[in-house]
C-alpha cells in the first residue's frame, strides 16, 4: 500500500482481528489454487445432456425457413428447439428494454444471433446436429454507423418501435423508456446543457477541436459462459450459473419459461471473471428450456469463439469535442457529441449514454457546456456493460483535448489539468454539487511525483540488450535503435453505483450463534463474487461489527433477497453496506439479550456505549462485560434487511440536469512508453496510478482492482479491438489468436499510490474502486505515445501502422 493521505474523517477501525482495513486473504483461495473451486463450466450431473446454440452466420436477414428434421434424427440428440417451441408469449428479454429474442423470430439482427438450440448426449454430437439445421436466410442491407442508421431510407432495426418521448424514466422498476430520440434507430439520447457555450466561446483565447474514435473492446473474462439447468420434480428448474446479478437474471428467465420466480431456483457457481459481460443473459434461458423439454439436466459451455458472440461488448464510439481556454489556462467551454454504437439490441445502452453524457466533461470545472450523447441501433454486435462504461470512452477524448489545449497554450499538461481540476463543492455540468472529496489535482501531483523508471532500462551493465525489455520483445526487432521514450498523464471521473433514480439496494441476511463453543457469524447474500473479493470484505465487515473471528459466507443464491449487480464499482458500497447494516441490527439484538441476562450485574449495560470485540461485549472504554458465548447461549440471532444508498434522480431529458449519481471515483495515471518508431512497436514500461479509495477495506484487494483495471485500459490503448467488417457487420477476430489481450510480457510494473479520503455518506467512508483505473489508463498511454512520436493519434487502439504511416 502506498502513502496514505490525510483523512478528512477517521473511519471506524477494528480491534477484532481480521476486520476491515486488514489485507485478509480470500476465503476461496485454497479451493481456487487446488483446482477444487467449482466454476459454472465444471458442473456435472448424472445423465446430463449438452446444449448447443446455432447462431446466425449473417448480420441482418429475414429467416425464410428453418428445417430441423435432420438434426432431430441424429442419434444422441434429445431435443431441437426454435422460436416456435417457446412455451409462453414472453419471448424477449433485456436489462432495460425487452428487445432481445430468446431465439430469432423471422429475422436476425446481428452476426451470431441465436437461432436454434440442441440437446445431445455429447457436446460434439450437439455441435454436429446444430450444423445440420437448415436455415434459409434472405439477407438485408446492414446498418453499421450513424449515417446508415439515420438515412432517409434506413431499414428499422426494430420495426414497429415508436419514438414518442416518454417522461417516465427507468426509475423504481417502472416502465422502461425508449428515450428522447429523433429516429427509431437511435436507441437513447441524453443532452447535458449548462450555461451558454457561445458566450464561453467568446471568452476563449484558444479553441481546440478533435474527432476521436474508440474501438470495440471485449471483456474477455476467462471463464466461458456456462451453466447447468436441472429439471425439478415440482416442474421448476434449478440453475447453477455464473452471472453478475442473480435476481436480474431471474426476473428475465422466469416469464420466458412460464414459471413463477420461486420455481426457478438459482445458485451462483464459480464465476471466471465478468467485467460487465455477465450483466446480460447468455445461455441461461436456453439451458432451462432444454432441461424442461427433455426432463434431463442440461449443461451448456461456450467455447471461446462462441463467447465472442455470446455476450455484449464495450460500445465503440465516435466523439467530437471542442474546448476553449483563456490565455491563463482556464477552460471556457465544452461542446461535445458522443455517438455510441449499441449494436442490434439495447442491453445497458441507456445507462451507458447517461454516463457518457453526464461524465463527458471529465473532472474539470467548465461553466458553459453542451454535450449530446446517443446510442445507435445497428447490425453490429450488441454492446452493453463493460468496466467504466460510457466514462471510459469520454475520458479518452477529453484527456486528449487537455493535452492539445496545454500544448497550444505552451503549458505543462499536468499543471493545466490542475488549474482546471474539480474539487469538493464543484458543480458538475448536470448541476450536481459534488459533496465528498474530489482530490483530482492531488492525484495528479502524486502520480507525477513518483520516481521514473530508468532510461534505457533494457541495458544491463556489461551485457547485450535484453530484448524482453524492448518494443517487439522476443521477436528481437530492435536492440534500442529507433526507440524513443514518451511520458503521458491522464485523470478521470467515474460514477459509483446505479444512477438516474434507480432503486439501488442490496440485501443481507446475518446470523449469529454459538457453534462449537465459539461465536460464529453467518453472512448470506445474493452478491455475485466474480473475483473482486466481495466475500473477503463481507467476512471482514462481520468481524468488525460483531467482534467474532469465525465468519461463514453462505453461497449466493435466490433464497435471499437481491444484492443488485456486481458492477458499477458498487458491491463493497451497497452489499457491503447491507452486511454492515444487518450486522448492526444483529448486534443490537445480541446486546438486548445481554441486558436481559446480565444487565443487573453491571450498570454499564444500561449507560455505556457497548461494542462487540474479540468475542466479548465491551464498553467503549474497553471494560469487558461478558463473553458472547455466554450472552448467546443457545439462542441464535438472525436478521435479513435491505439497505440502500441515498436516492438519485433522473437526468432531465432535455437539459441533463439532476442529482443523477450517488458517488464519484477518481484515478490518475502516468504512462511511460518506449516506441520503436521504425516499426511502430510500443512497449509500455510503466503505468503508475494514484487513486482515492475513501477507505481501503482490504488493501491487497484494492491494489488488485487498480492493477487489473489499469491493465484492461492498457489493452484498449495498444491491442484490443473486436474488428467488425463495415460491409457485412461480421466479426472478423472472434478468438484469442486474433483478439489480443495483454500478457504478462505486455504488462508493465504498476506502482500504485492509494489515497484514503473518506466519503461521509458511504459505509466506512469507502469509495467504489473497480472502474476508475480503467478510465485514465488508456489516455495516459496514448498521451505517452503522442509524446514519444509527435503524432496526433485520435484513435484507440493504436496499431503499428498508425505510428509508421503505412496504414
Amino acid at each position, binding site marked *: 500500500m502506498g502513502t496514505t493521505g490525510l483523512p478528512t474523517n477517521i473511519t471506524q477501525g477494528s480491534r477484532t482481528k481480521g476486520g476491515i482495513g486488514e489485507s485478509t486473504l480470500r476465503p476461496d483461495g485454497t479451493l481456487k489454487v487446488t483446482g477444487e473451486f467449482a466454476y459454472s463450466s465444471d458442473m456435472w450431473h448424472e445423465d446430463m445432456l449438452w446444449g448447443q446454440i446455432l447462431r446466425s452466420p449473417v448480420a441482418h436477414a429475414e429467416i425464410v425457413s428453418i428445417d430441423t428434421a435432420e438434426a432431430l434424427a441424429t442419434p444422441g440428440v434429445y431435443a431441437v428447439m426454435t422460436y416456435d417451441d417457446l412455451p409462453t408469449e414472453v419471448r424477449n428479454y433485456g436489462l432495460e428494454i425487452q428487445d432481445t429474442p430468446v431465439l430469432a423470430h423471422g429475422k436476425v439482427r446481428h452476426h451470431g444471433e441465436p437461432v436454434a438450440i440442441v440437446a445431445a448426449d455429447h457436446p*460434439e454430437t450437439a455441435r454436429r446436429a446444430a450444423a445440420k439445421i437448415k436455415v434459409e436466410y434472405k439477407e438485408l442491407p446492414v446498418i453499421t454507423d450513424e449515417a446508415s442508421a439515420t438515412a432517409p431510407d434506413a431499414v428499422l432495426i426494430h420495426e414497429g418501435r415508436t419514438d414518442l418521448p416518454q417522461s417516465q424514466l427507468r426509475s423504481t422498476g417502472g416502465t422502461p423508456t425508449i428515450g428522447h430520440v429523433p429516429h427509431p434507430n437511435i436507441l437513447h439520447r441524453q443532452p447535458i446543457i449548462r450555461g451558454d457555450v457561445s458566450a464561453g466561446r467568446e471568452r476563449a483565447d484558444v479553441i481546440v477541436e478533435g474527432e476521436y474514435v474508440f474501438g470495440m473492446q471485449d471483456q474477455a473474462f476467462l471463464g466461458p459462459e456456462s451453466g447447468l439447468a436441472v429439471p425439478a420434480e415440482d416442474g421448476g428448474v434449478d440453475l447453477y450459473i455464473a452471472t453478475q446479478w442473480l435476481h436480474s437474471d431471474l426476473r428475465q428467465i422466469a416469464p420466458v419459461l412460464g414459471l413463477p420466480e420461486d420455481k426457478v431456483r438459482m445458485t451462483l457457481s464459480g464465476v471466471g471473471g465478468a467485467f460487465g459481460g455477465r450483466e446480460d443473459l447468455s445461455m441461461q434461458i436456453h439451458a432451462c428450456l432444454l432441461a424442461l423439454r427433455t426432463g434431463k439436466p442440461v449443461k451448456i459451455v461456450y467455447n471461446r469463439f462462441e463467447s465472442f458472440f455470446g455476450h455484449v461488448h464495450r460500445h465503440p464510439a465516435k466523439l467530437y469535442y471542442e474546448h476553449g481556454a483563456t490565455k491563463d489556462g482556464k477552460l471556457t467551454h465544452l461542446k461535445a457529441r458522443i455517438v455510441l454504437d449499441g449494436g442490434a439490441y439495447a442491453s445497458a445502452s441507456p445507462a451507458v449514454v447517461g454516463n457518457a453524457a453526464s461524465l463527458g466533461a471529465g473532472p474539470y470545472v467548465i461553466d458553459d457546456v453542451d454535450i449530446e450523447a446517443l446510442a445507435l441501433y445497428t447490425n453490429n454486435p450488441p454492446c452493453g456493460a463493460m468496466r467504466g462504461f460510457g466514462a471510459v470512452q469520454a475520458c479518452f477524448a477529453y484527456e486528449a483535448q487537455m493535452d492539445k489545449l496545454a500544448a497550444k497554450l505552451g503549458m505543462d499538461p499536468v499543471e493545466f489539468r490542475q488549474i482546471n481540476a474539480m474539487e469538493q463543492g464543484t458543480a458538475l455540468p448536470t448541476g450536481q454539487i459534488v459533496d465528498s472529496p474530489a482530490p483530482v489535482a492531488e492525484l495528479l501531483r502524486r502520480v507525477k511525483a513518483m520516481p521514473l523508471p530508468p532510461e534505457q532500462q533494457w541495458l544491463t551493465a556489461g551485457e547485450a540488450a535484453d530484448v524482453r525489455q524492448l518494443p517487439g520483445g522476443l521477436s528481437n526487432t530492435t536492440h534500442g535503435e529507433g526507440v524513443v521514450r514518451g511520458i503521458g498523464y491522464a485523470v478521470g471521473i467515474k460514477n459509483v453505483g446505479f444512477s438516474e433514480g434507480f432503486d439501488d439496494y442490496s440485501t443481507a441476511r446475518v446470523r449469529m450463534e454459538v457453534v462449537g463453543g465459539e461465536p460464529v457469524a453467518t453472512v448470506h447474500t445474493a452478491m455475485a463474487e466474480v473475483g473482486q473479493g466481495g466475500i473477503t470484505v463481507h467476512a471482514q465487515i462481520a468481524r468488525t461489527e460483531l467482534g467474532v473471528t469465525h465468519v461463514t459466507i453462505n453461497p449466493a443464491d435466490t433464497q435471499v433477497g437481491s444484492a443488485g449487480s456486481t458492477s458499477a464499482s458498487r458491491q463493497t458500497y451497497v452489499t457491503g453496506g447491507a452486511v454492515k447494516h444487518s450486522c448492526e441490527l444483529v448486534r443490537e439484538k445480541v446486546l438486548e439479550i445481554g441486558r436481559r441476562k446480565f444487565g443487573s450485574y453491571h450498570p454499564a449495560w444500561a449507560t455505556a456505549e457497548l461494542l462487540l470485540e474479540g468475542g466479548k461485549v465491551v464498553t467503549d472504554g474497553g471494560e469487558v462485560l461478558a463473553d458472547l458465548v455466554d450472552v448467546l447461549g443457545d439462542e441464535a440471532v438472525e436478521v435479513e434487511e435491505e439497505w440502500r444508498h441515498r436516492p438519485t434522480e433522473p437526468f432531465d431529458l432535455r437539459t441533463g440536469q439532476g442529482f443523477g449519481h450517488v458517488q464519484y471515483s477518481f484515478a490518475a495515471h502516468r504512462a511511460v512508453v518506449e516506441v520503436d518508431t521504425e516499426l511502430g512497436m510500443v512497449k509500455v514500461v510503466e503505468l503508475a496510478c494514484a487513486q482515492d479509495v475513501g477507505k481501503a477495506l482490504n488493501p491487497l484487494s484494492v491494489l488488485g482492482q487498480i492493477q487489473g483495471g489499469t491493465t484492461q485500459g492498457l489493452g484498449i490503448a495498444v491491442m484490443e479491438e473486436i474488428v467488425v467488417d463495415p460491409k457485412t457487420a461480421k466479426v472478423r477476430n472472434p478468438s484469442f489468436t486474433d483478439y489480443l489481450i495483454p500478457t504478462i510480457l505486455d504488462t508493465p510494473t504498476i506502482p500504485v499510490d492509494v489515497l484514503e479520503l473518506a466519503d461521509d455518506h458511504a459505509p466506512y467512508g469507502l469509495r467504489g474502486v473497480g472502474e476508475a483505473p480503467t478510465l485514465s489508463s488508456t489516455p495516459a498511454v496514448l498521451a505517452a505515445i503522442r509524446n514519444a512520436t509527435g503524432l496526433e493519434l485520435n484513435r484507440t487502439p493504436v496499431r503499428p501502422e498508425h505510428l509508421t504511416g503505412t496504414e
Partner: protein
Amino acid sequence: MRVNFTVNGRPQEADDVWEGESLLYVLRERLGLPGSKNACEQGECGSCTVRLDGVPVCSCLVAAGQVEGREVVTVEGLADYAKERSCGTSLQDAQHWSAQGQDSQTGEGTELAPIQQAFIDAGAVQCGFCTPGLLVAADEMLERHPDPSDADIREALSGNLCRCTGYEKIMDAVRLAAARQSEGV
C-alpha cells in the same frame, strides 16, 4: 477407444473416448478432474496447462489418444508432486506448507505446494480461472530456474493469460515462492 495413462501418480482408464476428444476433455468430463480450465480451447490462454511427462503443455491441444501410457500432472496433483519432489532434496521443508485458514471456505488443513500458498498469500488469485494453469507453469519454471529474474518470470508465464490481476500480484507470488524456496523455509 480406451485410454490408459497415469494422472497425478495414479493409473487411470478412460472408456468410450471419442477420437476427437482432447486430454482436457477427458480430464474434466471423464475423470472428474475439472481443475484444468477451459478458457479458450485453442492453445492461447494456458489455463489448461498440465505436465505431460514433466513438460508443460496445453491439454486442450493434446489429443486424448496421445497420452496413452504417459504421465500427467494436473493442478489437483501439484501439492503431492511438490512434496515428492522436495523429498530427499534441500527443499524437504516445502512439505510443511499448509493453508492458514481464515474462514470456513478456506479448506483449512489442506496441504499446498509452495507455489499454491504463495499465490494465496500474495493476492495473486482473483476470479481464479487462470490460476491452475499459472500454478503448473510457475511450478515447472521454478523447478528449472530456482532464482529467476523478473524478465525470466514474465517470459516463462507469457503463455498464460490473466484478465483480473494485471499480473503484478502474480509476479509477487512467484518471487515469494522463489524466495521461500531459496531460504528453504
